[in-house]
């Protein structure tokens, strides 16, 4: 049994090596073969034929972060819902009520965010 697992790891390892070596080999070979004559025009950033006119990094609106923060919090709370859902049949009515209280707390948080005008796209 252990042997089979070791063998499959061996295959993974071989593929990993090929995956790393192939691009490295191809790029090194290309570097050796191609001529190396840099000039000003060649080194400018290529942007589909247009002249690049400002920084390639674009700053996102800070409002996205607000939504992202809210999402992170509410998304992670579902972590507690999964174990409950899996064991729902065993836990019964009482856990359901507990979970409702938990969700109610989350809703309170949402109302808080709403009243504080976080959800509006001003």
């Amino acid at each position: 049994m252990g042997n089979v697992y070791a063998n499959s790891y061996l295959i993974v390892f071989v593929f990993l090596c090929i995956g790393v070596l192939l691009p490295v080999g191809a790029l090194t070979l290309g570097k050796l073969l191609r001529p190396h004559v840099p000039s000003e025009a060649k080194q400018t950033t290529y942007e589909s034929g247009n002249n690049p006119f400002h920084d390639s990094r674009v700053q996102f609106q800070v409002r996205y972060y607000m939504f992202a923060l809210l999402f992170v919090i509410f998304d992670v709370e579902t972590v507690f819902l999964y174990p409950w859902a899996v064991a729902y049949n065993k836990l019964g009515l009482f856990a359901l009520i507990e979970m409702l209280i938990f969700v109610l707390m989350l809703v309170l948080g949402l109302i808080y965010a709403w009243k504080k005008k976080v959800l509006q796209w001003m």
Partner: protein
Amino acid sequence: MSMHTLLQYKWSMMTPEFIVLITALILSLADLWMPNDKNRRPLAWIAVVGVVIALIATAGLIPAKPVSILYDTFRIDSFSKAFKLLVLAGGALCLLLALDYRPKEGLSHRGEFYYLLLCALLGAMIMASSGDLITLFVGLELLSVSSYILAGIRKTSAQSNESALKYVISGGIATAITLFGMSYIFGLTGTTNLKEMAFEVQKLADSNYQYLLALAFLLLLVGLSFKISSVPFHMWAPDVYQGAPTPVTAFLSVVSKTAGFVILLRLFITIFAAAPAHGKDPSSLLLSMQNYIAVLAGLTMIIGNTVALRQRSMKRLFAYSSIAHAGYLLVGFAAMSWVMIDSIWFYLLAYVLMNVGAFAIIQRLSDEADSDDMIHFAGLYQRNPLLAVSMGIFLLSLAGIPGTAGFIGKLNIFLGALMTEPGHYMLAAVMIATTVVSYVYYFGVFVQIFFRPADEAASVKLPVGLTVTVVLCAFGTLLFGIFPSLAYQVLAQFEHFGDFLQ
């Protein structure tokens, strides 16, 4: 779990927690539905009343037998009751400071300010009485996360923002280190219940396990040193203390530190005192690690007291002084005498009184000038003699001059360090030496207050919340300094915390 088992628990044991929780909920809802232009300051009075009721409820629980409810995750023993009293008293005093907090640009989130303080307080209370790693951790984080926000509550002040960010980053690193240590202890014992852990840990005699356990111990010590602001995790304190609003600074230096010692004592005494040590000599892992704690205590005292010498900013000065006080408290822990918890409790009581009192006066003088430079203390005696005398009392107590609570606290810890066998003479000597060094900077402030001419002649008026705080703190500092037996009588009810491990 069914309804029946749930109702069997003695929920009355959680009364103080419920009171604080409900007050926080009421405040948050009230704040949400209050019109925007309405003044939020009355909310602070509700918060103060809630905390005082919780304090009375805790005092009412003192005669109760030790119990643990909710599958041993929440326990009420004399340790938790004693430290909950301290935390609640400190929290109430900080709320009084927050009531009269008036930064220059105004405080747009006054409502949040109060109920976040309550949430942080709730976290500290849960820490004081949890019997399980998970609840301990959740309490710790409730305290930490609320404090992060509190430090940055002045949203438009760059200093406050910076203080919050530094606090989050160093706090996050410390939390991760603490948790990493916790994960090893959990792995070795297979349980998160502290009592079962203490039982399981006794079986770990193998040297491999010993090694892992010692690693976990060191990780926990480093991680928790953040909360008590001792070496090696003390560097956040000056920056955060200086940038945070003054009531929050007081809260961090008093309640947060008390909570830090609570978790330190709870974890280390329950788990590591039971763990066998590898060497032949010491009887437990905790005792074998005694030297490391002693070195950290010494370093904390030396660094805190010497760097404080060159501070001009009052809040930075008090930050280093608070590091130094963490060092004194660690001496009490490192000595591990049988009066350890008693002496730490008394010291923290004195520390709550003298430090919050001092911060009340700092707040008054730095709000006015929007700077906390020592120069604003110049000539305080001419501007308000009573205030100057109270500040004098707090400074004398912080320095540990006889007649004040700070002296009795230091004396207890000092005697504790000498009464063990063998005595910790080195540590006691460092403590004396650094105390003498600390006189220099405390008396520097003293000189400013009493012997320097005032810049402005206008007398200093104190708003009501600050007046109550200063009067209570000054009274308490003198009372416990002259009649320490009053505090010992309270301590006597806890019977040297004998039910700690039951």
